[in-house]
Structure formats: structure tokens, C-alpha cells
């Protein structure tokens, strides 16, 4: 599938200022975070189907088994619910498992353990147990992945109390947020996007953390707020550039974490711009876009100068071919069009 590799490779950001840290790939930043966690904490182990195979989860786990041994980095049977339960039980008993999946689609097999057990035990036993568990998966858009290999399921998990959900957009964030997730005493889902894996960015050496639950301004502007996370931010930034040519000044907020969601930063920006475009890599209904829209209606109503716009996936499964994908997945132009319609 070289055509698609070419597409992914073409999505390289502008090289950041090389004066701080080192420029490295997003997948490499994740690899570095895992290595640091494994090195610093004997309670950490990394497992999942294929973590030790030659493709090494987009390269994120490359070399880890050789370095830390097969007891700390290991392949699993194809038993998603069972392994999620194993991870939960290990986390309840002093370990910090990182359970990796190639695709979020496979996490759906394990929701009984993730939603009904891991996320609830701390509450159910009145705080006797903590469940410091990381569930990692990369959204698999494109490549003919189709309806069952490209789902972004984070929206349906927003309603599960006890769970945190992290969605980084830069290599710097991928490393810092993953380290925060591993150090967190709650189950944390880290949903990456496959199209970010080869993105370059500045990544400092050594351990550092990025706060879970705090968003960040990626671009300051005064006319309209574009808010989302993960790969949607890349599109949002491209949209802001398009809009700038039309003298529309967009603010872009990267939520970094969608649960808990940084409501304050969204409302702060909305107060300034009065216009809101919620962007996401998943379905618009019942997900991040819907939650942001509801927040604006509930707590930011007085600031709204236009309806909230949502740019995400329609209420349809993903097609497998590029022929239909072009209509399915939003791009920068569609985000820009949504913003434009609010301003004019």
C-alpha cells in the first residue's frame, strides 16, 4: 500500500525550532516515554498483541523487549477482554501495566473489563484499590482500513466515570502525556492517531510530564475558536492558515485530554471569540464535538454569537476505499468552511 505510505509521509509538519530538545518522530517520542517508564519503575510492564513483533506498534515498542526483557515487554494471546482483566488485576495489585492495541476497534472487545471493572473498582471498594492502568491504541484512518479497523471510539467512553482519556497531537505531548498517564493512579486511555506517527517535533530528553485535564492554545486569534484534540488539531491549524488568508483570525485550542475536559479554556476562548467550531477525529454524535457543543450551550450561552459548528465524522461507518473516504473524513477546508460560515 505504498500510495498510502506516501500520503502519511507527506503530512509532515513544518520543522520546529531546532534550538530546544531534539527533533524526533511522534512514534519515537512514545518509544522514549515507554523506555523511561520501564527504566524508572519496576512496576511498569508493556504488553499487547504484537508489541515485540518486527513492526513494533508503529515503532513505538521497538527494542523494548531486548532492553527490558520478555517479562516486562511481551506479546499476548488474542484475548482482549481477558487481557484487559489481567491488566486490571495487575494494576489493582501494585503494577502499572501499559496494555497496547494496534487499533481502538479491539478495545471494544474489552469494554466489560475497562468500563465495568477497571474504571469502577476504586469507587466500588471505597478507595481501597487504585487501578493505574494505561490502555493505548492508535486510530487507523485510511489504508483501506474500513469500518472495523479505523474506528475512533473515544466518544463513547466519555460517559464512563473513573476513566481518563488522553489524545496527544504532537511528539512533545505524546511523550509527556504518556508519562503522565503511566504515573496516574487511574485507568487512562491514550488514543493516538496513526497519521501522527511520522510527524516530527521537538522532544526534550529525559522524563517530563504534561498535566492531564489541561488544554493549550496552539494559535491565538479573536474571530473564531477551533477546539479539538489529536489529529483534528493538525487539520485545525491548517484551517486557521486558510482562514488567515481571508483575514479571519482563528484561535486553536488543543484539549490534549478529552476526559476530564478543560472546560475553562474553552469558555475563556468562547468569551473572546463568540464562535465555536468543535473538531474531532470521531463521530460527531454523542462524542467530543457533542460534549463541547453542550458545554457552550450550558455554560457559554451568553457568549455565543453564532450556532456551534461540529466538524467530525458523519453518522456512518468508515468506508474502506479512498474513493468514499474523501467524502467521509473532514479536511482543513471543511473546518475552514465551518468557521467561515460562523463569521460571515
Amino acid at each position: 500500500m505504498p500510495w498510502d505510505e506516501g500520503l502519511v509521509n507527506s503530512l509532515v509538519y513544518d520543522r520546529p525550532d531546532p534550538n530546544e530538545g531534539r527533533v524526533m518522530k511522534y512514534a519515537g517520542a512514545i518509544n522514549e516515554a515507554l523506555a523511561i517508564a520501564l527504566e524508572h519503575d519496576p512496576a511498569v510492564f508493556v504488553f499487547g498483541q504484537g508489541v515485540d513483533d518486527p513492526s513494533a506498534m508503529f515503532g513505538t515498542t521497538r527494542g523494548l523487549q531486548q532492553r527490558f526483557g520478555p517479562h516486562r515487554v511481551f506479546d499476548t494471546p488474542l484475548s482482549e477482554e481477558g487481557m484487559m482483566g489481567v491488566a486490571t488485576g495487575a494494576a489493582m495489585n501494585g503494577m502499572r501495566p501499559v496494555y497496547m492495541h494496534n487499533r481502538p476497534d479491539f478495545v471494544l472487545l474489552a469494554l466489560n473489563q475497562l468500563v465495568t471493572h477497571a474504571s469502577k473498582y476504586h469507587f466500588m471498594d471505597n478507595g481501597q484499590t487504585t487501578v493505574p492502568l494505561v490502555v493505548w491504541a492508535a486510530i487507523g484512518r485510511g489504508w483501506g482500513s474500513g469500518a472495523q479497523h479505523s474506528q475512533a471510539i473515544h466518544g463513547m467512553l466519555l460517559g464512563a466515570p473513573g476513566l481518563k482519556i488522553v489524545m496527544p497531537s504532537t511528539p512533545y505531548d505524546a511523550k509527556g502525556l504518556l508519562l503522565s498517564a503511566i504515573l496516574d493512579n487511574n485507568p487512562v486511555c491514550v488514543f493516538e492517531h496513526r497519521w501522527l506517527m511520522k510527524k516530527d517535533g521537538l522532544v526534550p530528553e529525559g522524563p517530563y510530564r504534561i498535566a492531564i485535564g489541561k488544554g493549550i492554545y496552539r494559535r491565538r486569534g479573536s474571530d473564531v475558536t477551533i477546539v479539538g484534540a489529536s489529529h483534528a488539531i493538525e487539520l485545525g491549524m491548517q484551517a486557521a492558515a486558510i482562514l488567515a488568508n481571508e483575514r479571519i483570525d482563528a484561535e486553536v485550542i488543543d484539549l490534549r485530554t478529552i476526559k476530564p475536559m478543560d472546560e475553562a479554556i474553552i469558555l475563556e476562548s468562547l468569551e473572546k471569540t463568540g464562535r465555536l467550531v468543535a473538531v474531532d477525529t470521531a463521530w460527531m454524535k454523542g462524542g467530543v464535538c457533542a460534549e463541547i457543543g453542550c458545554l457552550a450551550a450550558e455554560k457559554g450561552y451568553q457568549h455565543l454569537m453564532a450556532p456551534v459548528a461540529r466538524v467530525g465524522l458523519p453518522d456512518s461507518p468508515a468506508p474502506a476505499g479512498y474513493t468514499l473516504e474523501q467524502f467521509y473524513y473532514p479536511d482543513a477546508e471543511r473546518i475552514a468552511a465551518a468557521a467561515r460560515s460562523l463569521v460571515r
Partner: protein
Amino acid sequence: MTIRYPYKGEGAAGFARFGDSHEPAFLIGLYFSMLRIRRIEEEIERRYHQDQMKTPIHLVIGQEATSVGCCAALRQSDLLYSSHRTHGAYLAKGGDLKAMLCEMHCRVNGCVGSRGGSMHLIDKRVGMAGTSAIVGGAVPIAAGAALAAQIKGQDHVVVVFIGDATTEEGVTSETLNFAALKKLPVIFFCENNFYSVQSPLATRQPPRDIHKWAATYQMPSVAIDGVNVLAVYDAVRTAVERARSGAGPTFIEAPVYRLRAHGGAGDDSHTGYRSELEREAWAAFCPVKLWGDFLLAKRLLDGASIADMQRRIEEEVHDAFEFALSSPNPVEADLYKHVYAE
């Protein structure tokens, strides 16, 4: 109606199989523990209609030998996970009765602060490590606990109580496979009571012996008499030794009979899903009476010592109910505690 699932054990004759090597105090202790659980359950049942315990109860009356025999073979540091039918496991593992009854009454002094009710009696201090009301839910979690012990080089073992229906859940197959693969120090203890709520085994599984199915996962798998407390103790002790030595998991199938309904107080055999004849046939092999009669015949117990036990238990149960009923309710702010850990 006929007896669909007859008792196939040897009754009291089965006790002889396990020799005379046990200390009398140990043997008497087993009886006391079983009698205590039985009396606590009967008192819960007697009071249930008063509607002060607003929680769905799942009584273990008839299944005391499995809880007590199993926990007698465990250290306090060994971990126990169970299903929704938790009373026997919690008490046998050393869980506090007052904290249990507070939980039954939804009071803040409950072992989990009123969040669990009857189905989630947890006390990590005594190794009562977790429960699940989703059939099979605790199975992989127990394996995960065993994996943690293995990685950390701890020598405690993990037991998970499951039922016959749990063996139908896919996650149980997944977990047996993984536990055998990794030689985890975990024991799968299957209380086969033949009915899942009111669905008989025959409508859910082809004719098979559950322990033979489990054996295909390349682990020792045994069938024992679930009303024989010594048989339970012996099987679990053997499995514990194996697990502690690093040799891996064991599966134990113990046919037992719940002499009450799946949930709530009283029996429900009259509704027709099982025959009263079948229930009576099993009631004749009540594990508490079977073991008590055996100890009486051995002159390790007499009428006076049993009466003394009864008195101590009545007193404890009475005090615990009083404690629970006079305990405070949780307040609204408690709802938001421990949703997330610090």
C-alpha cells in the same frame, strides 16, 4: 418431577478418605466457621422481609463447605476474588461481620462505605480482594493479581470462586489459557450448583464434565465433593502448594447445591425450574450437618459444645445487626469520593 442433578458424593463416608492427621482444634474450627456462616445467613434471611436490607442478597446456604474449606487452606495474605455470591467467601476469608451487615443496610460503616451492598463485600486487609457481579468478571482480574505476584516475586496465591455458568463465558477460556501459559499462581474454584439463576446446566452446556473441559488447558483439574469440607481443604491445599512452588494454576470443580433461590430469601423450587425432590435430596447432605454429625460421632463435639457455639454466634450476630442498624447513612458528598484516585 424427578431429580435431574443427584448428589454423587459419598456423604460422611467421604471424610475417612482424608485421614486422621488434622488437629482437633482445626476440625472443630471448620465446623464453627460453617455454622457461623449458616446462622448469619439464616438471620439475614429471617429479617429480609422487614426491608431494611435494601440490597439483592445471594445466600450461600448449602455451599458453606466450599467457602470454609477453601479459606482454611489460605493465608491471610493470599487473595480471594469472587462473584456476586460473596457472603461465604467474605466471612470465611476473615471479613468483619459488622462491616458486612452495614453494607447490607447501605450504611457508611460498610466494608466499602455502602457502595457495594451484598454483591461487593471487599476487605483488602484480609485478602478479600474483589468481586464482580458480571459473571466471569473477576476471573481475569484474579489472573492479573497472580501475574503481579509472579512479577514481584511474592509468594501469595490467588483464588477465584466461579460458578458453572462462568465456564460458559469467553473470558474464562481466555483466562485459563493465559494462566496456564504463564504458570500463574491462581486457583480456579468452580462451585457447580447446576443452575444459573433458574437455567439448568443442561440447557447451557452439552453433556461434559466441567473439570475435564478445564483440563484441556493443560493444568491439573480435579472434581471433588463440594459438601465435604475436608475434601475442599485438601484440594485447595494441594493447589496452593503447586501455585506457591511456581508450577502454575489448578482448576477445582466442586458440585454443590444452593438450598435457597438464586437471589432473595427462601427457596424457589416450587416455581418448577428444579424439583423439590432434588433440593430435599441435597438438603440431606447439608455440609454443616454432615460435618457436625461426623464430629459428634468422633466425640470431638457434643451437645453442650455446639450449644455454646450457637450462643456465641447468636450474640455476635445480634450485636452486629444492632451496630449496622444504628450506623449512620452516607451523605451526598460521599457519592463523589473515590470516583478518581489522587
